[in-house]
């Protein structure tokens, strides 16, 4: 694949999701969302609860119909779900009657059907080992902690060697220590495998720690990209070094402030015309007293 194609590995263009409304016009949950991801890049989506982050992610995953716009992955427009995209949700949803090994093998058997049984077994063992479950492969989900179950879910997704990994608040149900541990596990795998990844999270520190870029979404309805922050911190990331970086708290403060400002949009007071970007093309000059007629060179009425 050319360098140019790698620079625009995932192209999300004018992505819009509208839901029918009983009261008239359809309600747009997401409107005109544009984002381009480079190959191997990790991009976090942050925004308030219900702003539409997961809607974007599920549209990219092909699990949610796109109202308008497109998602192009490695030069091909996505049409529904496919093995080129691995998805990890907050809950791993493992099949309880299968062991960790069997849960991961389920997908591998489908995607690597051409490989020998031994090869498939090796792939499965490799990825379970990569997420730190080498000693727990034969355990059933009920015998695993929440963090371990999520590791199985992650191994199941990345074992299929997806072109893109989609993580929807993957650590949302885990305690802090397990969360940090799992973040390191995933970061290790992503840096090694160079998998292009989109992460939905509420956690500002998590977004900074894991991402090359952070896409800040405005509040819904009609949520869209507010701005994108490109993080200057070196990879592979080291948590303690990152926390000691002189600019870390500047970036963290900017993210938190953005979220606070978005919260202000909800209050009616902040909707005064002077408190927003003045859309000059939406102004109504006809009604204004401050008009001027020009007629030919220099003519003023």
């Amino acid at each position, binding site marked *: 694949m050319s360098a140019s194609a790698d620079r625009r590995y995932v192209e999300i263009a004018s992505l819009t999701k509208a839901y029918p409304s009983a009261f008239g016009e359809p309600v747009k949950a997401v409107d005109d969302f544009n984002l381009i991801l480079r190959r191997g890049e990790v991009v976090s989506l942050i925004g308030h609860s219900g702003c539409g982050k997961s809607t974007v992610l599920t549209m990219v995953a092909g699990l949610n119909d796109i109202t308008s716009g497109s998602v192009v992955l490695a030069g091909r427009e996505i049409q529904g779900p496919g093995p080129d995209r691995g998805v990890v949700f907050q809950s791993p949803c493992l099949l309880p009657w299968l062991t960790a090994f069997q849960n991961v093998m389920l997908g591998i058997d489908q995607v690597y059907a051409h490989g020998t049984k031994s090869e498939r077994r090796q792939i499965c063992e490799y990825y379970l080992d990569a997420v730190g479950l080498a000693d727990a492969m034969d355990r059933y989900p009920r015998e695993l902690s929440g963090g371990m179950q999520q590791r199985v879910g992650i191994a199941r997704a990345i074992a299929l060697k997806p072109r893109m990994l989609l993580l929807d608040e993957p650590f949302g149900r885990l305690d802090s220590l397990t969360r940090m541990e799992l973040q390191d596990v995933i970061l290790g795998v992503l840096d090694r495998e160079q998998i292009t990844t989109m992460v939905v999270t509420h956690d500002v520190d998590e977004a900074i720690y894991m991402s090359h870029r952070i896409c800040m979404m405005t509040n819904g309805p009609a949520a869209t*990209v507010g701005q994108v922050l490109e993080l200057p911190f070196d990879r592979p990331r080291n948590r303690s070094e990152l926390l000691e970086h002189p600019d870390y708290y500047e970036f963290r403060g900017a993210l938190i402030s953005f979220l606070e400002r978005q919260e*202000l949009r909800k209050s009616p007071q902040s909707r005064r015309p002077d408190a927003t*970007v003045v859309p000059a093309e939406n102004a109504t*000059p*006809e009604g204004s007293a401050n*008009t*001027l007629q020009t007629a030919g060179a220099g003519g003023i009425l």
Partner: protein
Amino acid sequence: MTHAVQKSAATSTLVQCIEVWDVDPQASLMRLTGHVRFRGNLMDFETPGRSVRSGEGLAGMAWHQRHAVVLQESPSELLQQLGTRKGLDLSALVAFPVIRGHEVLSVVVLGISPGPGAFEVWSRDDRDELSISASYYSGLKSFELISRHVRFPKGAGLPGTVWKTGRSQLACNLNHSPGFMRSFAADETELNTGLGLPVGSSAGNCDSVLLMLSSYAKPVARAMEIWQPGTGHHSSVDSAVLCCTAADRIGLGGSPDSCLAMSCIPGAKDVISAAWDSGRPILTASTEPGGSSRPAADDGVSPRAFLAVPVYRSTERAAAVLMIF
């Protein structure tokens, strides 16, 4: 939010000198057609006939490159020379071209004095996002740090809105505005107003955006306004009804809520009209009452000079931006 500086008009502006250069019809030279400099309460206005070729000097550079140029190396020999020659304390120079279709008509040069504020040139990168390609910041350490890492897709933030609409945009009350995406630092720096100008607009799509961010204490200009043709008059531009669709007059004693107040400033309409009709930037100085040709004395409230700049969308005039000093 109450700011002491809002109570009285700021007499000093960030912009301390202005030059307007017009490209001649043969496009071989660019002539200085207007020049103003403010020195304390004094102001000089002259229209010398100096000329430069494409690529010569800052104005020639903006003409040649067809986008806004920021000169702010510190210490910059050119800045020092210029400042000494003009008796000004300049910390940056900003030049931007006025482009109609593919033709550069004029270049406006602004000499910037020290004070809190920012001038940013946002250009499209290989991801179709706007990132900063040139900038000048003063007293905005955090804002500068973060801004260098911010990217705006089409339609996002003030620069992205200018890009999407292909029109100039004025944002007021930045420190209260959720629409201004980088408002995290606006509070600490008292940034008040943002003016976005599309540069190099072709086929309704601009190549870059010049953003001027103004503070309460020392605004870029005392007032900034956007004038546009009224609905239904877009096609007959020679007899257009122009309307003020956005305004910020904090430097003339206006309140932060005056963004859409439609009070008319004497002299403003003449300049807007002249710029609209000629299709080029017009720079004029306020003159003393009674028709004297001498510049009016600076009383701290009355306008000293007007700069009107037409904004093109492809080859059509889309708006005119008025800056009052």
